[in-house]
């Protein structure tokens, strides 16, 4: 579904992605892990076109996405820290996005309902807590039933109940054949939802393996330990 070929990106002198090659298929939840600054967010933003790569290519169904924008209708994005125009109300943000995406056939308001966002519709974005903002971000990411979801640290800041709701939503969407990329540090969470783990280190792919495969390779029952073991090996 998504193929990343020789992706390179540097911020000034700092090289964040060095010839990254990886591909993801449909119906999978892929957890992107790696130490801070490994390039996880950058990779996500490259796929979305928010960050422009220095070299390499990103293909969606065999088509390069570089310099294009229409493909983004197939991607739902939930940023690590949602930043919204401070003086807009929740309702206005949601209505605006829906207005812009009028051509979308299906509108999925499940998360709006589950998070009870409508009761807070008249609150200004600037007045919201980080967690509530994350709820809005999540609702927006899933809203237009995209084929691909890129969720950057989705549960950080969410209360346990909200996190559970999100996890079940992720699993539900996976079943509908979607590709979901999640960056996360929480191993239990990864174990709960992910099928595969992709590990980035210093801008390069360390490994990309199914969870079962990782456990087998490291001979460890607990995912966290298994991953730590594999990373120490090299």
């Amino acid at each position, binding site marked *: 579904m998504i193929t990343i070929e020789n992706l390179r990106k540097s911020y000034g002198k700092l090289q964040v992605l060095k010839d990254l090659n990886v591909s993801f298929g449909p119906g999978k939840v892929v957890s992107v892990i790696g130490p801070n600054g490994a390039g996880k967010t950058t990779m996500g*933003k490259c796929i979305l*076109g928010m960050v422009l790569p220095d070299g390499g290519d990103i293909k969606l169904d065999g088509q390069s996405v570089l310099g294009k924008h229409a493909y983004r209708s197939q991607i739902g994005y939930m940023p690590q820290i949602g930043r919204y125009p401070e003086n807009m109300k929740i309702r206005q943000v949601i209505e605006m996005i829906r207005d812009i995406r009028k051509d979308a056939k299906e509108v999925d308001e499940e998360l709006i309902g589950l998070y009870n966002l409508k009761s807070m519709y008249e609150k200004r974005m600037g007045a919201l807590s980080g967690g509530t903002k994350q709820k809005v971000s999540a609702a927006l990411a899933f809203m237009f039933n995209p084929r691909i979801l890129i969720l950057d640290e989705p549960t950080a800041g969410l209360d346990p109940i909200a996190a559970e709701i999100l996890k079940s939503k992720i699993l539900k969407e996976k079943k509908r054949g979607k590709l979901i990329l999640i960056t996360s540090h929480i191993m239990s969470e990864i174990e709960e939802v992910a099928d595969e783990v992709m590990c980035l280190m210093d801008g390069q792919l360390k490994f990309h393996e199914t969870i079962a495969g990782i456990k087998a390779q490291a001979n460890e029952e607990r995912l966290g330990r298994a991953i730590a073991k594999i990373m120490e090996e090299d």
Partner: protein
Amino acid sequence: MNKIIKYVFYDIIRNKIVLAYTLFLLLLSFGLFNLGGSPDKGILSLLNLVLLTVPLISIVFATTHFYNSYEFMELLVAQPINRKKIFMSEYLGVACSLSGAFILGVGVPMLIFGASITGLYLLLTGVFITFIFVALAFLASVITRDKAKGIGIALLLWFYFALIYDGIVLFILYAFADYPLESATLAMTALNPVDLGRIIVLLNLDVSALMGYTGALYKSILGSLWGIGLAFGLMLVWAVVPLASSGRIFSKRDL
């Protein structure tokens, strides 16, 4: 794109600065037209203020607006929308609402106190200056991510065009007083949109008689419709060039 402009408008109207700007211009214009006696005199006094405040307010407002709209733009960039469109929408949204405030704030008193072709030129000049300085503001904003730095650059640009430039040119004229400088002056004023606007309006007021030979030269060029067209064309270039370059930088930068 229209939709995005609509939301930019919403955002601008919600914060009261543009409203305050309109009121400020209204009060000022009414005051000056009342004080001035003749509409021409009112226009003359207005001209000074327009050439000082319109660039300043345009550039500062547009710069702060750009930085404050970062979130908004980030939100939109993840949507299937061309970045250039987002940028242009922001530009048009800001420039049009400021121009609207200007037209309302200066144009209405002008209509009441006596509209003239000179008044029209003053209005046109103000609108062009607004578009130019919003473009310059956006250029300053895309050059640096740091809001304080961006506003600093914007203020410097204003300072340069509204003040320093004239000082430099006057100094050059003084230093080379022994040479014929008419054409050089013409060229140098064309390199500053504020001067260009000021001269277009001045030449249409009867103070142009004070401008002697140089004024006559200017008038021979700018006196015709063709010349006025050329001058406004030049101002258009002044808006398009910074806009295009800042648009290019914006579409190539990481958010």
